């Protein structure tokens, strides 16, 4: 698995420290950067699990017609126009004129484009004549099929249920008139909030049987239109069908049958075309301050967004690379150019072997228009002191032992700018820092003091600065008996000078007034996953 960096979203929890990564349950709170949002008001990262989602518009995926929310319910979430789905292959059906009757000499007669219309699937060549449906004109097909649909067993049942509950609701609504009015007003203002009926909760949802509550909650027992045991598709009929089967294809497969919400016949020849279900465009809000984070455009054809507050525009992107793995992969590619696929599959896997030390590189990209200074720090994980239970296999430690060394000083990353603004190499770098002493061209090999005080080619620290990216090197030393994957939490904090007046923020300002540029700090946790450790020797573990 390629090494990756995932970002932590606290998801409104009070502690900002993420759970240690070796626990299996901690994976839910780490996300890749492209799935995260950023709320400017709260200055916080939001993920898909904590945002509140609401529907922005509905559209048909076939004809791209935007359906107003009012007619969505009326049309039962389906397209009201000519969009149908082939029951066989679930492709879109086209309304085509049927073949003209062949004239005596077999030539094509002139009237190819008139005549009855049929639904035809281009992909599997199914057509509606197989179930006996033809149309007089090619438009308004849904209306022409309306009477078939209305007489289908599920819609009849639904209508009966609605009548039954309608009467009951009206009766109970009269009794609690104030709440009904308030709830109606609420339902009008906020879409998606159903009518709040305090009495509905106390009744059994299905309306069967006796209610234990007050008199007025009693409802007459509901008798469905057809008994379930005798409905199509159950019991004896199925057995007879199977006994008389000639080909497997005569039975409709599960994906073909579960599109409709009612039990239907099991035979393929009874499958009917289904109206295409509508899709929706959603907008997302921050759960704390309810500001909109994502708002798509109303037009169904456009894939852009009116408001798009994604985390990748605010947080630096981090990519982790293991140079030795990358080099080995490139060599493998060169050697495999002439080989066939089967020979390639037997190459040994390259990874990190226990007991050695490797360097890795973090490539940070600054999305802001201001330069930032970043500081990285590895979060120390406490090894659990709970005694191991008896009977549990004595793995060495739940967390594989390894040591990470990262540069601890702050390093700057230049702001994002368009490509043409970087004229030559000199301009790609920001403020020159005496400590780092960066030269004008790419990777510097500079001797520096690392933890042991020896001078050697630099692997820990800033390796390269180019445009708005900085490559930082770190080192990992893996213990001899290590197993599992190498994952560690890393706290990334960065400061930037911002010109925005933001008087409402507190604690992050340096006490200047609103107009002057301020230095803002933001920090977030990430988990860096460098991949699995290849145990050193198989022999040693056979104890």
């Amino acid at each position, binding site marked *: 698995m390629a090494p990756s960096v995932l970002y932590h979203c606290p998801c409104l929890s009070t502690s900002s420290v993420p759970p240690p990564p070796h626990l299996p349950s901690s994976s839910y709170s780490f996300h890749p950067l492209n799935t995260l949002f950023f709320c400017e008001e709260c200055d916080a990262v939001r993920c898909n699990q904590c945002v509140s989602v609401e529907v922005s518009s509905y559209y048909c995926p076939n004809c791209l017609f935007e359906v107003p929310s009012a007619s969505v319910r009326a049309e039962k979430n389906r397209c009201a126009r000519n969009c149908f789905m082939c029951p066989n292959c679930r492709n879109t059906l086209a309304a085509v004129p*049927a*073949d003209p009757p*062949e004239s005596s000499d077999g030539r*094509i007669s002139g009237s*190819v484009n008139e005549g009855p219309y*049929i639904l035809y699937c281009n992909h599997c*060549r199914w*057509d509606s*004549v197989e179930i006996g449906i033809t149309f007089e004109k090619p438009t308004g097909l849904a209306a022409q099929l309306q009477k078939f649909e209305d007489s289908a067993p599920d819609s009849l049942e639904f209508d009966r249920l609605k009548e039954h509950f309608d009467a009951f609701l009206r009766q109970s609504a009269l009794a609690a008139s104030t709440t009904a009015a308030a709830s109606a007003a609420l339902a009008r203002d906020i879409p998606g909030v159903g009518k709040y009926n305090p009495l509905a909760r106390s009744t059994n949802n299905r309306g069967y049987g006796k209610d234990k509550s007050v008199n007025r909650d009693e409802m007459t027992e509901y008798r469905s239109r057809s008994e379930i045991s005798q409905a199509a598709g159950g019991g004896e009929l199925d057995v007879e069908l199977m006994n008389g089967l000639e080909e497997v294809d005569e039975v409709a497969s599960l994906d073909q049958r579960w599109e409709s919400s009612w039990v239907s016949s099991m035979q393929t020849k009874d499958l009917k075309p289904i109206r295409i279900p509508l899709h929706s465009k959603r907008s997302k809000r921050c759960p704390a301050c309810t500001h909109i984070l994502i708002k798509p455009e109303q037009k169904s054809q456009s894939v852009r967004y009116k408001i798009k507050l994604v985390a990748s525009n605010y947080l630096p992107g981090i990519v982790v690379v293991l140079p030795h793995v990358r080099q080995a992969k490139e060599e493998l590619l060169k050697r495999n150019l002439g080989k066939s696929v089967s020979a390639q599959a037997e190459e040994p896997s390259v990874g990190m072997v226990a007991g050695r030390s490797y360097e890795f590189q973090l490539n940070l990209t600054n999305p802001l228009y201001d330069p930032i200074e970043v500081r990285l720090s590895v979060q120390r994980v406490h090894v659990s002191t709970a005694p191991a239970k008896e009977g549990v296999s004595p793995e060495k430690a739940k967390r594989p032992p390894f040591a990470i060394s990262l540069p601890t000083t702050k390093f700057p990353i230049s702001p994002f700018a368009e490509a043409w603004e970087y004229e030559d190499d000199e301009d790609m770098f920001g403020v020159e820092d005496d400590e780092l002493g960066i030269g004008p061209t790419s990777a510097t090999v500079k001797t520096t003091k690392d933890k042991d005080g020896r001078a050697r080619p630099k692997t820990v620290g800033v390796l390269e600065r180019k445009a708005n990216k900085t490559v930082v090197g770190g080192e990992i030393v893996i213990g001899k008996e290590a197993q599992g994957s190498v994952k560690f939490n890393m706290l990334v904090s960065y400061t930037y000078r911002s010109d925005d007046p933001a008087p409402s923020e507190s604690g992050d300002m340096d006490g200047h007034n609103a107009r002057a540029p301020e230095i803002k700090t933001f920090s977030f946790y990430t988990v860096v996953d460098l991949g699995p450790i290849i145990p050193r020797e198989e022999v040693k573990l056979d104890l």
Partner: protein
Amino acid sequence: MPPIRDKFTIHSKAVVCQDVELKGDITIGAGTIVHPKATIFAIAGPIVIGSGCIIEEATIIVNRRKEVMRIGDENLFEVGCRVECPSIGDFNTVSARSRVHHTVRISNHCVIGVGCLVVPIEDEVLDDFTVVYGPSAERRKWSGRGKVQEMDLRRKHAEYLREMIPKFNRLRRGDGV
């Protein structure tokens, strides 16, 4: 293995572009259109292509068997397909990026869907009006409805190409050596 001797018999009404790779003993009938960058290899045995066929770009028609590979009339071989079957009938459509093995014999009016791999292990004959579709190459029988219009469409397609392709591509003329 004897060297492949090229012998092309191309009808004068066929439209074969210059960029086509032809090898071996190939016969192309009247009105057939071969787009540029197609590949027709008659390696072990000859290939006979009927009239009115449309062979689009990047198709590979290969005959690795000694017997003659016969392709019928008015077939459509879409972009990127690979065909090795020993016999193909009339009015078939082999859709884009599909593959048909040399164990299959195709009859008339069949449709091999987009991206389908028809690669049975044993010899098989696809009956008339078979439609192969879906990622797992399921099959069903076409009722034949709409075939008149499709034939009409195919002929119009071929006519249009016959007009347009010579305007924008160089044509291969005459027989090969």
